[in-house]
């Protein structure tokens, strides 16, 4: 356990000094600042007022940015460290492979989640100071959603890093994964549905296997419990899970996907060449 925390601490310190982290923090802090600056808390759209409007916009933007950011920065730094000889040296020290791999994940998770959460927390603190009503339920669920989103894509990123032998390959693979998830979000699924070659249930199941779609639907479900904007797909989803059940699924499935991916990455990492 001591080795795990030492590795996690090491990864945190390395990340805090990396340029990607500074940009990452600036992006999420900047989003919240801009949302305040453009007076989103004053606006009223579809019944959303005050901070709930800001949080909905924030989670939508985060869903667009966080996955690709986490995937690319994770594979770049892990595969980059391996190529540059960091693994060769640090893994010559007496640290267990499990402690090393999971310690890296823990450290990176903290670094990836903290700026996203702190930006949202900052908005809540500001709202309290400015006497704007804080939707605590929404804040709590979005926090959990962000935590799970970070876990999911970090796990996938570590799996790609364990498989790919070079930074270029890892980066390319990470981008492809993100692109496939993005395309299956709407474009391909809509095409499949329109052509009518598969049952709607299959198309919806396929959509729900996509963590990006799961997050998107969960974020929608919070202000549209009947998922009216999703059209007929909503019937399949709500029949299958129910509103509360879907909220639980939206947290459990991506978390499981992240943990399974990370575990697969660990198995590959410990079986193969380390540097």
């Amino acid at each position: 356990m001591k080795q795990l925390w030492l590795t996690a601490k090491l990864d945190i310190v390395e990340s805090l000094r990396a340029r990607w982290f500074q940009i990452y923090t600036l992006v999420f802090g900047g989003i919240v600042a801009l949302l305040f600056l453009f007076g989103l808390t004053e606006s009223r759209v579809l019944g959303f007022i005050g901070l709930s409007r800001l949080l909905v916009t924030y989670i939508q933007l985060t869903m667009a940015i966080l996955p690709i950011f986490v995937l690319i920065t994770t594979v770049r730094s892990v595969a980059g460290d391996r190529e540059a000889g960091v693994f060769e040296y640090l893994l010559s020290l007496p640290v267990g492979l499990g402690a090393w791999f999971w310690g890296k994940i823990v450290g990176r998770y903290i670094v990836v989640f903290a700026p996203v959460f702190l930006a949202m927390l900052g908005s809540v603190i500001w709202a309290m100071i400015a006497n704007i009503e804080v939707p605590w339920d929404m804040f709590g669920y979005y926090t959990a959603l962000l935590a799970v989103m970070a876990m999911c894509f970090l796990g996938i990123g570590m799996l790609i890093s364990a498989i790919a032998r070079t930074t270029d390959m890892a980066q390319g693979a990470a981008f492809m994964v993100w692109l496939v998830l993005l395309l299956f979000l709407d474009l391909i699924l809509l095409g499949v549905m329109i052509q009518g070659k598969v049952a709607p249930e299959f198309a919806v199941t396929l959509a729900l296997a996509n963590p990006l779609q799961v997050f998107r639907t969960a974020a929608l479900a919070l202000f549209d419990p009947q998922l009216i904007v999703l059209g007929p797909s909503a019937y399949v989803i709500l029949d299958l899970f129910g509103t509360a059940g879907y909220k639980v699924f939206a947290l459990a499935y991506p978390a499981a996907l992240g943990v399974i991916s990370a575990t697969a990455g660990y198995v590959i990492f410990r079986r193969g060449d380390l540097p």
Partner: protein
Amino acid sequence: MIQFKQVAKTFRKARVLDGISLDIGLGERVALIGSNGAGKTTLIRCLLGEYTFDGSVAINGLDPRSNRTAVLGKIGFVPQLPPPLKMPVGQLIDFSASLCGTDPKRIHDIARRLGLDVDAILTRQFVRLSGGMKQKLLIAIALGREAQVLVMDEPAANLDPEARKIFFDLLAERLQDTTMIISSHRLDEVSSLVNRVIEMDMGKVVLDDKVADDVTLTDVLNCRIVLKRFEPAFAKALDGWKISAADADQLIWTGEIAGPDRLRFLGILSRYTALVADLSLTEN
């Protein structure tokens, strides 16, 4: 102490190690030499449990891959190229010391002996240090613990003559209870440090030879050079060595050099053969 049995490693279709079998005993100082691509680094990585391979490697009977903590706790490693770590020097020392179960002060002390003012660079990023400073720090981390095996890849390449002398002294302090494997692509760089030479080529051992242990690591040689005429380039070449002009015309130069450095020193002098009228190297 260290046993390689039929170790073979293939990258895609390229066979980098081809059935290496070696026994290296306690106290042996092995020069692992060979041209680039001979398989030296791959063999070292197998020894450190970093690569998977066919055959077996054992250190004190333990497989370094499945007993990482126990085995690597006894190995000090100095890589040829320092890793580009962004962490501060202080944290690297604390991290290594904590994993190896040693006191960071030991590492500080050895770094100081090598001429590195650790206190002044504790908060500086490791990657921002000069090549020589990085090398000294990595050597200090490797030597600042109870290592039974020292694996060093061109360890003295970036050190100045003074630091090299201290480095040899540090190695000499551990001769009895430490096995050393020193990798280099040039024998003259390491010949004076070792008592066994293993040459590799195309993934095979092509020479395994015990060498006379005449030169001890702590030897010091008195040096006297008489020049036919003074040449500023000659003075510049001796910069860093403990040798200085003994007369006003700067024709007689005297001083001391570390015994293990004699070949390197003569290599430098060889460039000025035409200038040298007389040369003597005598053991203290």
